[in-house]
């Protein structure tokens, strides 16, 4: 599945939720199911400190594809991480580097990717792309 197809799949999944609380219930489930970053990778240099919540991100390249694992202390942040990773995991570095994550806006979660929210997600997306760019070279 391409990044675009994966994004569309998520948009379709979210379309069935009319109520905000149902939507968040789903995000929280995703957060709980997020395959955790290995404990040994939860180091200071992989920590992205937000004012509101913190994120750990570990990126590697295997057979020309990007692999991401991550964690956060806040479960909603974690749920959104799960969505972001689902879209770009196992994709080529150049596709990850140019990905816009525009589906986040479509499913109404844009606020979580706002720099003023200070939850670590904006920096995490930046970090994902930087890692991808390094792998392109």
């Amino acid at each position: 599945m391409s990044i675009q197809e994966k994004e569309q799949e998520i948009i379709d999944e979210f379309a069935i939720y009319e109520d905000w609380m149902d939507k968040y219930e789903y995000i929280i489930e995703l957060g709980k199911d997020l395959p955790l970053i290995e404990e040994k990778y939860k180091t200071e240099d992989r920590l992205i400190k937000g004012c509101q919540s913190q994120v750990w991100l570990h990126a590697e390249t295997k057979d020309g594809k990007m692999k991401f694992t991550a964690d956060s202390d806040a479960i909603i942040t974690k749920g959104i991480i799960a969505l972001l990773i689902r879209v770009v995991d196992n994709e080529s570095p150049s596709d990850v580097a140019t990905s816009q994550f525009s589906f986040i806006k479509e499913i109404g979660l844009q606020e979580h990717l706002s720099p003023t929210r200070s939850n670590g997600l904006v920096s995490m997306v930046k970090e994902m792309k930087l890692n991808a760019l390094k792998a392109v070279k």
Partner: protein
Amino acid sequence: MDIQAIRSQFPILEEKVHGKPLVYFDNGATTQKPLSVIHRLSDYYTKENANIHRGVHTLSQEATTAYENARNTIQKYIGAKENHEVLFTKGTTDSINLVAYSFGELLQAGDEIIISAMEHHSNIVPWQLLCERKGCKLRFIPMDDKGDLMLDTYVELLSEKTKLVAVTHISNSLGTVNDVKFIIDKAHGVGAKVLIDGAQSIQHIKVNVQELDCDFYAFSGHKLFGPTGIGVLYGKEEILNQMPPYQGGGDMIKEVKLEQSTYNTLPHKFEAGTPNIAGGIGLGTAFEFLNSLDMDKVHKHEQELLEYATTALKKIEGIQFYGQAKEKTSVISFLIEGLHPYDVGTLLDKMGIAVRTGHHCTQPIMDQFCIPGTIRVSFALYNTKEEIDLFISALERIIPMLKN
């Protein structure tokens, strides 16, 4: 007190957020504005706008009068001796920076400044900058685990080296009401001056600067039902006259020669440039609104809300309160075991309830409690028990969602 009559003066309280009626519990960050203030701002721009202190034409005269009347209203309300002891600033932060710069110019290496462990960043960082600039030393009044300042230690910190004590009247994170009268009297005993950060006070309790005998008192308009971008520094005339100007520009000078200028008298000496005229006038109106209230009744109402909410929250399993001082305003900071404040705040928002999460610009307090932040609800006079009921039932819905 007729809460419904008060609520009807605050149109924003009728708003819906995510389709739910707004429950606004973030009054510590900023308060909502009554119609009188909103109308005053639009009337000013509609009918009166002109620059002040510099025109002979009618509008300029009228705007000047309105601005100066606002100063007089504020002077009377806070009990300042002279109207020129009321300086308009951008807000609390600006007021504190003014003192840190100008009063700071009078200090020397080795002089000491005392602040407390519960200060807002805006009453910490300006003093750190001053200490770097002048080689002064910063000392701290510690806080106990209930959120009360340890005043015995404070008294021991005081010496003839102490030149300034800068403490908050009321803590924005914990609600603690400090015994500032005691702090001021003890400081004066060693000849030190005192600045009180009043950002969280005037909207909750009656303040009289002459009775307190503080040397400086700083506050923001937006936290007491007035506009943003305007605030006040009260300072005793004698000290303000000794201090050099803060910023240079128009309005603050008597005579300008290319080589050197002479400075204007108070308050203009500290009000360089075109001020926030609409803001000043609107702040005057906010004080008229305060004048229309019985602050004892406001205080009683807010204390009832505090008690009602605290009692209800105590029933929640795993709740931990931060700030249980002897005397508190209507602020509750808490955490629920296993729940992250970001998640709770996000979900409450989706249910129309506005609370604050995070460190509330008081990282040293969070460090003392070894927590990254709290969930904070802070009530104002227009809040109700019904709103607290909505908040509690929202929490009851959210908690099982977030718990594993």
